[in-house]
């Protein structure tokens, strides 16, 4: 697919693709194999330095850090994908309700979104934990809900802006009905913003899971989570500073990759960036040479901005 090719054409896209690809592969691998049992505590081998048996060494309980990190990839994938799915669904539904319904519904939704956005993700997680107990599912749902609301708030503004544009009016003048305008114009033009917001949501979800687990609201101790590991190891940061860098670096890499993926996908699907700016010659005219304009712009605009009405 040329989209994939365009994504890896830029260094940021390569970085995102490599890191996330690796994450998914490692998560799959961890289902069937880890160097050691990630949960086996071995009090006689605490704080061992890296060795052939323990590639990143062991932690305070003598667990193999490498195996734990590998097992943690599954959690990261579940959190990122799960939150992404929930955030998309919530976002799409709220955007639709906020843009396509009767005026009082739209305005009511706008106010509701503004209120919901003020709710901290942490608070939502705490409330859900109080109801349903702490678990990975709680983390995924609370993060998904929070970001779904944020996405909806941003996407709603974008849809309204697009709906006011001349090309949508032109579509109506051509006889296109509501559904046609929605799927042929509103959605494709709002998609780039949605994509970037979604990838940011997934990135922040991974961070949020780490934070929630750190605070004890997340996955229980029977699930390997980078956040829980970070929480455990940061207590020793004065004595064994290097141990906490492994989960910290893993989280940072994945978060960066997810953020950059959104940008890369958006750029890869924008026709303005994927096709040349070479001026198209008129029928019968010789091909136009490079136009004498500021570089990076489209061919010499023969227009001047519209008359102020």
């Amino acid at each position: 697919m040329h989209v994939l090719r365009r994504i890896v054409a830029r260094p940021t896209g390569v970085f995102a693709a490599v890191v996330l690809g690796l994450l998914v592969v490692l998560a799959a691998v961890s289902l069937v194999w880890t160097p050691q049992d990630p949960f086996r505590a071995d009090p006689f081998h605490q704080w061992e330095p890296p060795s052939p048996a323990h590639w990143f060494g062991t932690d305070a309980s003598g667990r193999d850090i490498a195996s734990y990190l590998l097992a943690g990839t599954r959690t990261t994938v579940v959190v990122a994908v799960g939150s992404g799915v929930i955030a998309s669904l919530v976002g799409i539904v709220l955007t639709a309700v906020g843009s396509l319904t009767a005026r009082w519904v739209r305005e009511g939704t706008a106010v509701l979104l503004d209120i919901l956005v003020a709710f901290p993700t942490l608070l939502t997680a705490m409330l859900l934990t109080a109801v349903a107990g702490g678990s990975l599912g709680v983390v995924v749902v609370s993060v998904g809900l929070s970001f779904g609301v944020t996405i909806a708030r941003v996407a709603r503004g974008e849809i309204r802006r697009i709906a006011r544009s001349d090309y949508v009016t032109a579509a109506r003048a051509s006889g296109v009905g509501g559904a046609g305008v929605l799927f042929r114009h509103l959605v494709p033009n709002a998609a780039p913003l949605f994509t970037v917001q979604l990838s940011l949501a997934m990135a922040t979800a991974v961070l949020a899971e780490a934070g929630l687990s750190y605070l004890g609201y997340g996955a229980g101790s029977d699930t390997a989570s980078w956040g829980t590991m970070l929480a455990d190891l940061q207590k020793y940061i004065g004595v064994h500073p290097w141990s906490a860098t492994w989960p910290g670096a893993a989280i940072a890499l994945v978060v960066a990759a997810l953020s950059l993926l959104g940008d890369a996908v958006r750029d890869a699907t924008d026709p303005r960036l994927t096709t040349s700016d070479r001026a198209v010659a008129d029928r019968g005219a010789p091909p136009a040479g490079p136009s004498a304009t500021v570089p990076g712009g489209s061919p010499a605009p023969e227009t001047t901005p519209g008359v102020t009405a």
Partner: protein
Amino acid sequence: MTEILTGTGLHRTYRLPRRGPFEPGPLRTAVDGVDLSVRAGARLGVVGESGSGKSTLVRLLAGLEAPSAGTVSAGGRPVQASASARAMRWYRRETGVVFQDPYASLDPRMRVGRIVAEPLRALRVEGDHDALVASVLERVDLPADAAERYPHEFSGGQRQRIAIARAVVHGPRILFGDEPMSALDVVVRARVIDLFRSLTDDLGLTLVLVSHDIGVVQRLCDTVAVLSAGRVVEHGPVSLLDAPAHPVTRALVDAAPTLP
């Protein structure tokens, strides 16, 4: 002489945002009681200063906005802009609209061929759409492969020609232009004027053209209506611009640049 398009008692008011929590927003009147009729085959120019309501009037006539009061009818049938797309299909078939800003009136994410074919698709026009699109793009002097390209690959004048192609591809009888020349530089403007003229002649179109540029109206129109503050202050053959009676018309004509 058949009247192809009639506007009766047209009013259009907007409510502006309210200034305090308890008072309703003030009303702004864009069109303040306009009666207008257009003969089949006529070329009507609607002129006026900024804010005179000329764009709003044409949007009412084109069925893009519903009047606050009054009616628009075409060939005897009422035009209800607030009705569904399906109910308005008959009118959309008869009309085409060209907008002012060639950079904003084409969806940047759609290929030109799809953009121009959109009326054919929405209005369920029979025939080979690809062939119709190719022939109309040729008619506006765009290259054969234009249909595969995206709008940003074209210059402003070319984009406006794409917009014109879209407005006529489905064989309408009335062509509306909302200041279609205003955003173009003078060399391109001259070309687009010629294109408008030849198209309306060849296709036998009725033309309703909004412009603040007297020169354009003198060249493309046979009748003119002068708007000021939402009302028609002068109406007649385009020759009236040579000897304007109303002070508003005179001010517009005097302001229009001439070459010594």
